């Protein structure tokens, strides 16, 4: 994964506002990188651009050597489906689907056969095999996030993007979630980019970057 001169600029009250300024950075396969920054520093914008959810004003993002923004919206979606997994602060589970069905969804969308068996195995890995038929509203926050992690890993992504994955959880539960995330990350050899403002969590990553006024500042530099 590589970002080259990535820039995002918006117009706010008639004046241009630079959110990300000529950002260059890369992450090698299997590496875990934390992006730290205060609220409004552009962390979420960066994550959106790395996933191809938003379009930059300038620069590019290469994913597995493919220029994300040379593709159209649907091309990016297809690439995401193949290469990228997500874990969100607010879990983003579909309320009308059971835990198992939520995990199955990306596989089903990709037209994979045997989605049910694979997803069952994924739920088992996160310790929720017993709760496969429960709906999100019947699960605790920690359980919901575990389902989200199972969903993220179900497609064997090359890149996992996590947006404040413990933001909605108490610290003990958050701890367990992070253990699980790193354990799976290791098992799958996935590149992990974790956006957070939690220093302790960031400490567990191999590399930490600070986002300040739209510019990335490597730690201890």
């Amino acid at each position, binding site marked *: 994964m590589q970002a080259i001169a990535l820039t995002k600029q918006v117009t706010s009250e008639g004046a241009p506002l630079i959110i990300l300024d000529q950002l260059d950075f890369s992450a090698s396969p299997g590496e875990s990188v934390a992006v730290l920054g205060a609220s409004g520093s552009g962390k979420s914008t960066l994550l959106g651009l790395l996933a191809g959810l938003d379009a930059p004003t300038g620069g590019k993002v290469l994913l597995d050597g493919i220029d994300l923004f040379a593709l159209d919206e649907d091309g990016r*979606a297809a690439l995401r489906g193949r290469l990228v997994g997500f874990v*969100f602060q607010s879990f*983003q589970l579909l309320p009308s689907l059971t835990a198992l069905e939520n995990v199955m969804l990306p596989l089903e969308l990709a037209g994979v056969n045997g989605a049910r068996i694979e997803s069952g195995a994924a739920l088992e890995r996160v310790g929720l095999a017993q709760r496969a038929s429960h709906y999100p509203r019947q699960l605790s926050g920690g359980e919901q996030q575990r389902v989200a992690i199972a*969903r993220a890993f179900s*497609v064997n992504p090359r890149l996992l993007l996590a947006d404040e994955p413990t933001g909605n959880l108490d610290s003990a539960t958050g701890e367990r979630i992070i253990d699980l995330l790193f354990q799976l990350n290791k098992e799958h050899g996935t590149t992990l980019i974790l956006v957070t403002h939690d220093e302790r969590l960031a400490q567990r990553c191999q590399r930490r970057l600070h986002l300040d006024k739209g510019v990335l500042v490597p730690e201890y530099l």
Partner: protein
Amino acid sequence: MNRFSLALRMLRREWRAGELRVLAAALVIAVASVTSVGFFTDRVGRALAQQANILLGADLALISDHPLDNYFEIEAQRRGLRTAHTLSFPSMVLHGERTQLAEIKAVSRNYPLRGELRVAQQPFSPDIASKGIPESGTAWLDDRLFKQLDAFATARLEVGASRLAVSAVLTQEPDRAGVLFNIAPRLLMNIQDIPATGLIQEGSRVSYRLLVAGEVGKVDLFRTWVAPLLKRGERLEGVSDARPEIRAALSRAERFLGLAALTSIILAAVTVVMATRRFMARHLDNCAVMRCLGAQQRLIFKLYLIQFSLLGTFASLIGCLLGYIGQMVLAQRLGSMVAVELPLPSMLPVAQGILTGMVTLLGFSLPFLQQLKHVPALRVLRRELGPPGHYGLIGFALGLAGISGLVLWQAEDAKLGGYVLVGLGVAILVGALLALLLIRVLSVVRRQAAASWRYGLANIARRAGGSVAQVTAFSLGIMVLLLLVVVRGDLMRSWQSTLPADAPNRFVINIQPDQVQPLRGFFHGHQIHPPVLYPMVRGRLLAVNGNPVATREYPDERAHRLIEREFNLSWSEQLPDDNQLVAGKWWGQGGYGAQLSVEEGIARTLGIKLGDELTYGVGGAIFNARVVNLRKVNWDSFRVNFFVIASPGVLETFPASYVTSLHLPDARGGLLDEMVKAFPNLTVIDVAAVMNEVRTIMDRVSGAVEFVFLFTWLMGFTILYAAIAATRDERVFEAAILRTLGASRRQLLAGLFAEFAVIGLLAGLVAALGASGTSYFLSTRILMLPYVCNFWLLPIGMLAGAAAIGIAGIAGCYSVLNQPPLQTIRDSS
């Protein structure tokens, strides 16, 4: 296929989550409404198609208003075809002290050539197929006549001058029109006995039929041979054009019941819009997540489109099933319009139902589904991002065009369909504007209300859009109910009150010239002032200003009938009392020349003007006369009136019969039995009895209409449910806040009741105003009756609306009250 099974799985999950139920309910009801009418008319249509020869009693019938020449029958037999004769006419039948007007049918030996007669020994006992026709000297009565005459087996009836013995109850007769067309009950007799009755005389209205049956090719050839030989007053009815009266009634029923059924489709469209909008709002996040997980825009749209198509198909199929059950009710109310057993319906209405369901669902949900595919994936990170949100009337153009197409298709007539569309559009618009206005007024009033009510009323104002939709939908349902239940009775009473108390209530027809004096003597003898006896000659209009009249020159259906049949012509020296000249002058005393006075309505229909010379054929002779004036006739007066009156000296030489009308108090009704005994050929028509029959028919028809509008009502409740569902999350949250602030369950309940009862009240108000407007239009423009305002409409409509909708609303929201407040507030934070 993979996509299809994924969509199917997703549909199953959505269904389980309860998201689609209200949509499905709306479609099921709408399709049930349309298909119940569709199945029913299909069955009657198939009865006409499959059993046409049974309904005709033959393969071909030659029908005439005068005795047919023999050579038709001789030729048919020469060609190896079987033949039979029937003739029918109305006449009085006497049994002891009882007299009753009956439709007499006399038949010859081979009758019927197709189908069968069925008879029983007693009314309502099991019947069997009969092997022949009534023996000479006997008669078969249908159960109605049997009861009315208090008859029994072997009873002796007087029919004209002869006596016939009752030998069976007639339970089925192939070529009998169904009850909807029969005012008088049936007596079946042998054609050989007709001369002895002496009933067929000048002026008798008799229908003669020569029935023909045989091999198809031979019948066709015979038909080709007969067609060019037909004279005026003679026509052919074959298998393909059998029973025009039933066909016309069927097509009318199909149109109007179909259009009535369409109101539920239009309301279904409203439900689809409300429910799909909520569906979309609740699925924005899902779609963003799906896009994030790699779903392409096209895939998302395709998945939802397949889901909705499947939902539409399933719901429509269930609707068809309910429609199939519903048609049984219609068949029970109206099925008797054909006399044969109705066959099973075809599958065509199913196609119609599915098409209707799909057009309604997809036409009005596509704009929202389109929106779903435009949800930005970035919404997973920034919740405030939604779809671009361009939909308005243009987005629904497809749906509106689809609905318009359905209305036009159902109306089978661009003009009628156009009226219905415009009328409905205006009605909905006016209803909606009125509802909006009332809601505004409420906002002012509510400041004075008690706390719970203030809260309820505030809810109505805040959700103005939804409230307007609910009020409009319910007002449509309540209005139809008010029209059918209250206004119909009002109009009937208003019409009856226009009749003077001594309006004639009996008509006497078939009076022969030599009976005029004895009849006057009969009235004198009973201390009754003899009524005026009007002479009547039956003649056919042959030419106007020397140009022969041909039906093809008149586009109007009524003009066709008028030209085909014989006119009743009369003569008079004076302008009849209740007639009024509108053009020209009445003839003076003596030296008239051949002059005619024509009723203005018929003159307009046939394009006859003052000064035109008309040629009439009477029997074998013809006469010419000039139109010198046009008259206005009050047909509601129940007096004898004529379309055409000649000046004295024109018609006297032609064979005539006499006719009169009189008012007899019920207490003296027995006098007529005596009169019929003394003059057996006279036919007495009891206006009250005829009116009763007409009322029974109207009740059946309006019963069918009410049944169809039942679906409209159900649809109103579906809209209510959709509206409640759409605002449920909000309500749960509000209730939780109010509970936290100390509101009691009772107060919450009062607030909810206030909200829904007021919606019902407003709907009732709009409905009552609509019903009054419609009633005003009907009475002054269509029925020409003085308009009587019914002040009860308002309280009835409003109370009924408030009670029904208040209770239904509470029932729909009840679960809101049971939600623990803390959980609710935690969930939404």
